[in-house]
């Protein structure tokens, strides 16, 4: 007999609401007009730019998905970005990403899986129920933001692809089109941008396949039309404008590992105890929150998501696997 021991973050079977009960609740809510009428609470407290189409979502119920921190101003979250395909200055993406065409868009799902396929954006948008999640975002450069993202767990897409036992890692590839991305002319990185996760990391419910922020579709400079967001890792791990998701057996080599292996590791989990060779990671500046003369706030291991993701790295030497 196979005894399955659930991981600590998994609910016990007895805790799971039966599907009928869950559906009937929805019916009652819809009957009362509550689902359609009630606007997402969080998006209200963090208004978007008002220029992009709305993307309706309900607040996520995934553990740890809604940070209590105050969301960063939309203007800051959309004008201070690292997206080297549009230039290396943090103001470049906002100024130059209008050439990106987020539609039509196709994501190829391929590699070690039983059901590979090409998903167009509209199919992806309907694949899972849209949730709003307020995540802390910690950039490897020592600043942080708090962003209300819209999307659903990456695991929903992965399950559909039915990865084979050989699929040990997931590799994400960002679009690399010179016509749309002026930054590709510079040799900062070896294009296209590639990032990767271990399978269990990718399957973690907090790993978000993201389509929107602040209740609206993603702006181009933030990785439109589809990206991942991994709140416990440094921001660069969260690949933007994804065109390919590939299941692989061997650990993928990410673009930053390629460029500077001594500075950027495969895991790149937020860790105040492991400094970057050129600066400390012990503290961070919260954009728009901390005054000019305020001391920076301490950085927390796994960006404060240790309770949710810590067990993924149990027994691992986080200094060596930085």
């Amino acid at each position: 007999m196979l005894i399955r021991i659930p991981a600590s973050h998994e609910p016990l079977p007895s805790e799971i609401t039966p599907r009928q009960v869950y559906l009937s609740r929805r019916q009652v809510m819809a009957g009362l007009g509550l689902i359609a009428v009630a606007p997402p609470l969080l998006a209200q407290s963090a208004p978007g730019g008002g220029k992009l189409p709305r993307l309706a979502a309900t607040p996520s119920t995934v553990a740890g998905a809604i940070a209590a921190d105050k969301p960063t101003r939309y203007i800051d979250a959309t004008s201070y970005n690292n997206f080297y395909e549009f230039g290396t200055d943090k103001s470049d993406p906002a100024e130059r990403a209008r050439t990106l065409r987020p539609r039509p868009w196709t994501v190829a799902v391929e590699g070690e899986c039983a059901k590979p396929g090409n998903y167009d954006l509209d199919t992806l948008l309907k694949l899972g129920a849209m949730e709003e999640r307020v995540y802390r975002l910690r950039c490897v450069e020592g600043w942080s933001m708090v962003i209300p993202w819209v999307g659903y767990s990456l695991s929903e897409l992965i399950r559909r692809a039915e990865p084979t036992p050989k699929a040990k890692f997931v590799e994400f590839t960002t679009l690399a089109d010179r016509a749309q991305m002026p930054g590709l002319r510079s040799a900062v990185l070896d294009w296209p941008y590639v990032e990767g996760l271990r399978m269990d990391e990718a399957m973690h419910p907090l790993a978000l396949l993201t389509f929107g922020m602040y209740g609206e579709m993603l702006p181009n400079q933030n990785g439109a039309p589809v990206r991942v967001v991994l709140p416990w890792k440094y921001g660069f791990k969260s690949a933007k404008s994804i065109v390919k998701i590939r299941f692989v057996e061997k650990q993928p080599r990410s673009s930053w590992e390629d460029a500077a292996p001594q500075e950027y590791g495969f895991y790149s989990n937020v860790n105040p105890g492991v400094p970057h060779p050129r600066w400390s990671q012990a503290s961070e500046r919260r954009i728009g929150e901390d005054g000019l003369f305020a001391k920076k706030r301490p950085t927390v291991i796994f960006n404060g998501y240790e309770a949710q993701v810590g067990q993924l790295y149990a027994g691992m030497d986080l200094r060596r696997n930085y």
Partner: protein
Amino acid sequence: MRGALSAALLSRAAKPVLFLLCLAPLAWLVYGAAADQLGANPAEALIRRLGDWTLRGLWLTLTVTPLRQLSGLAALARFRRMLGVFTFSYASLHLLAYGWLDMGLDFGDIARDIAKRPFILMGFSAWLLMLPLATTSFNKAVKALGARRWQALHKAVYAIAVIALLHFIWMRAGKHNFAEPAVYGALLTVLLGWRMLRRLT
């Protein structure tokens, strides 16, 4: 033409005008900080732009002598000291902004940061080397040292420029973004190369 230029450079207004010009970047930054015009991360913007202006000031200071020799406008020499002292002021503000805005004036942390991170060590060394130059920039100091020793001491500016450039290159190395350091490097090669050529010929 040269006469008019020379007269303008020698006029009583010339130094106050240069003084105000040198203050303009600082005024602009202070205004930007007060009016929330420095983007999402004003602390970083202040630190970096003060660093940019330090480099520009240093390069301008080094341009005075070649320009004087090429143009024959001896009056240009009047402005070298002011440019140098302003460069030191911007360097000090750059260091202060780093220590205050980035490190919260925690001197233990600052000392550890300087010791640990080569690019910060470079920047700090450049500032340290500037100190004796700034403190001997008064007429009395020149007299006390004697012109020859004063000149020998102030040759340190060449080393300072090279170290400052290394600081900038190292800082940009993280993003493999060498376009701007390359421009500064090319200009410095010309400025120092010109001096070597004159010495050889």
